[in-house]
């Protein structure tokens, strides 16, 4: 049996949001309509969290989604001592990348937007908020191969990290996708974000054995989307 386990998992998408303890909860009424329509501007930090973040308002949507998924883990990172933060690795995977932000930058070029025209900027925001200084990687999955969970397990097995946060976040406008890609290649459009924290088994109550599933599916299963997760992923939130 692997010495590593999933210590926490979170998911957010059109269906709602939650983590492995809370299960999936519906969005508050005031944002459910806009989020169903993909109007992510309606999603504020205060919609879900009481904590403070001065940076959220300046971030692009992809970074907001990734940062919120990590916060939803409710893993108590704020109590982690500094030396441990140096051992927390962060691996991001994103199929859409920052194409929405690239499009925005070309329509209205601003220095504040340019900083977010990299798929990995979300990783920087996560590390800044939680002071993580462990190993990092940002993967753009090819042919359905994700890789962030496998990357994290590699870091853990080789002793390169003490714990890893894996994040999958995507945001794709259907019309943009249709304008850039052939019907065969174009994703259906949509958004979702999820995260898992993987670390050494310690007998912790939240420990879940690792399963060889792509991260979005794994997170869905762990927050209780259960048996229909595979179908739900394909029907409502699959971006590719």
């Amino acid at each position, binding site marked *: 049996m692997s010495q590593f386990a999933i210590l926490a998992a979170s998911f957010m998408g059109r269906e709602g949001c939650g983590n492995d303890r809370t299960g999936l909860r519906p969005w508050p009424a005031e944002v459910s309509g806009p989020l169903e329509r993909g109007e992510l501007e309606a999603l504020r930090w205060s919609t879900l969290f009481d904590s403070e973040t001065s940076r959220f308002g300046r971030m692009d949507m992809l970074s907001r989604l990734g940062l919120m998924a990590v916060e939803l883990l409710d893993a108590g990172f704020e109590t982690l001592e500094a030396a441990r933060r140096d051992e927390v690795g962060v691996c991001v995977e994103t199929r859409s990348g920052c194409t929405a932000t690239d499009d925005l930058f070309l329509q209205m070029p601003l220095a504040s937007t*340019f*900083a977010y025209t990299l798929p990995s900027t979300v990783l920087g925001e996560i590390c800044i908020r939680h002071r993580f200084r462990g190993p990092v990687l940002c993967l753009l999955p090819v042919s359905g191969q994700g890789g962030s969970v496998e990357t994290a397990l590699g870091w853990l097995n*080789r*002793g*390169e990290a003490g714990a890893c946060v894996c994040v999958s976040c995507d945001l794709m406008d259907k019309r943009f996708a249709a304008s850039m890609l052939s019907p065969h290649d174009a994703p259906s459009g949509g958004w979702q974000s999820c995260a898992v924290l993987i670390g050494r088994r310690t007998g912790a109550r939240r420990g879940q054995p690792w399963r060889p599933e792509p991260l979005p599916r794994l997170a869905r299963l762990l927050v209780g989307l259960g048996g229909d997760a595979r179908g739900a992923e394909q029907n409502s939130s699959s971006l590719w």
Partner: protein
Amino acid sequence: MDPAVTAPGVSIAAGGGESSRRPGATSVAIAASGEVTALGLGRERLEQAVRANAGGLRDCPRLAGKGYQSTVGGYVPDEVWRSLRERDPAHADAPAFLLADAALREARADLPGGGCQAAPGSPNARTGRRDSSLFDSVPASRRGLVLSTTKAEITALESAIRRQPGSEVARRHLFPALLAADLGAAHDIAGPVQCVSIACVSGLLAIQQGALLIEEDKADLVFVIGVDLFSDFVLSGFTMLRSLDPGGCRPFDAGRNGLSLGEGAGAVALARRDALASPALLVTGWGSSNDANHLTGPSRDGSGLALAMHRALKKAGVAPRAIDFVHAHGTGTSYNDAMEGLALRSVFGAEVPPYCSSKGLFGHTLGAAGLLETIVCLIAARQQLLPGTPGLRSPDPAVPDSLLQKPRPARSLRRLLKINAGFGGVNAALALEWEGG
């Protein structure tokens, strides 16, 4: 160590502290390289420039007069573009594919035993080298590819916004994963294909991923390719950040005033050491980190980059004093170069090994930087030469004084360290070991 308890039900235990280089682990070597830069196509031109310390930065006529802070950079010469487009008209408006494909062809041509049909205009094309025994001896399913890029075919999005015509293939390659998949398909690579996009450390982390594919026995031959373009998109962004030096970058210079962008592609072929007959440059260690400090600026104390270097050295099982040469990021911005100086002192103390920057050779090529600069390390090792720092006039007295202004013969160049840093506070280091000389 005791676990550090965090939230109810969640605890994070300490990681391993020992050297992570396992006895008997597979040795991964750089078997070949391919390159397209401002200096032209092929390693011969790059070697000449390294030996002569001759930079390839010029003003770019196709982007001049648009109000950018500077259009001086490392852009691929028009005659190279012409030859690549003539050879592959189907990708004529897909420049990122053309560059990456050319670098990959060069790397295949450079493999032991010969190579595939090289890119037109390259020395390999003139010598007529053909498909190699190493390439052919590896089944397609055991060949892998890792692509490193920050913006891929960003010019396709620029064209779409301007409502200019563009091909379907160019628009498709706006998505880097699809560019990686198409490169793999074009070169009969049916094994694992990955795409890494993590700012200016993409290249080094792509090499790391390629080495892992071999170390973990998922592939026998892996092509790692880095590519990025000299585009309106990137030039306008760096103009807004006021980060470009109108006179061309001067890394580690007392009067440095910003960076120079570049375009190009670099490719290395990674293989098991025992698949090669001649002395090789081994990839022995890697490490990465985040500053957790700032999105577009480096940490002021260099501690994040120092962490990445320590991790790479630990993985390689090498002490800092054993390093003979460091190839630095050296962008020419005030903050980056100062940060690197501090990071080098933090790791090496008073005995910082000789170090240089190659940004004055071909500019800052973003997703290709880690690949092209690792190829400079390969050239340095093969020729037992410590490269200089083109563009440097008057070294900053605040940075370590082992800075190499001009190339000089090395007494013994065996262990090398390559470092990069980038937006989002990311840092990476790669430890290399030369078997010959």
